[in-house]
């Protein structure tokens, strides 16, 4: 249970850091006024609002770590690229994929070579995963998962709070 209580300690500090940035972003998004009426642009606006909230959530989480983690660095780069397409009104997801590094993949052993497929899938899910060695990937994944869990907890708390006005 030691590791779980560690998780809680890290988590509460991270929660407030994330929440502060995210709430500020939500307030900004809330103040965005909708464009003049036409049903298709309203739908578009609603969709873009949803995208903005999502980007704000990932951006706030990644900003808590900035360049210190590979995944947060990669995430912030990705978001910078994506948010400019959102602003231009493109709803289509435009995620830049990281270029593979020229370095040869380390072969650790027979047991791990058998898991190449699983590692490949993981690389695609973790931001910056394509260019890391296996050890780095496993470390970054652990951190990324912890942060995602925190992000989801805070988002859910905020949504629950706003759903039942006092």
């Amino acid at each position, binding site marked *: 249970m030691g*590791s*779980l209580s560690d998780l809680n300690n890290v988590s509460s500090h991270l*929660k*407030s850091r994330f*929440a*502060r940035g995210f*709430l500020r972003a*939500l*307030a900004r*998004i*809330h103040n965005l006024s909708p464009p003049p009426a036409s049903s298709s642009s309203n739908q578009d606006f*609603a969709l873009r*609002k*949803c*995208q*903005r*909230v*999502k980007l704000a*959530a*990932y951006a706030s989480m990644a900003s808590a770590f900035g360049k210190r983690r590979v995944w947060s660095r990669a995430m912030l780069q990705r978001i910078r690229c994506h948010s400019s397409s959102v602003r231009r009104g493109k709803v289509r997801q435009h995620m830049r994929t990281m270029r593979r590094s020229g*370095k*040869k993949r*380390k*072969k*650790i*052993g027979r*047991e*791990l070579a*058998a*898991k190449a497929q*699983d*590692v490949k*899938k*993981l690389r695609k*899910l*973790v931001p910056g995963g394509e260019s890391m*060695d*296996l*050890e780095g990937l*496993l*470390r970054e*994944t*652990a951190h*990324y*998962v*912890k942060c*995602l*869990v925190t*992000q*989801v907890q*805070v*988002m*859910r*708390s*905020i*949504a629950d*709070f*706003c*759903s039942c*006005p006092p």
Partner: protein
Amino acid sequence: MSSRRSRSRQSGGSRITEDQITDLVSKLQRLVPEIRNTRSDKVSASKVLQETCNYIRSLHREVDDLSERLSELLASPDTDSDQAAIIRSLLM
């Protein structure tokens, strides 16, 4: 805890041992609810990676759903910046 140096191949960089990898894999296992409570010798590294991928995908989906929910709540006139201030103070 002494780590046995098992046979490992070097590739112009740091040496990584099988034990270190196994260690990292069990750390991941403890994070994923599906397999958290299973004994680590009963769960293969492959399974841990698969379940981690599934878990990350489900977390991404949750973020999507919550973003949608939040953007709808933002649209409603009931939500205002006072609530945001309250939340902020609660979370400090």
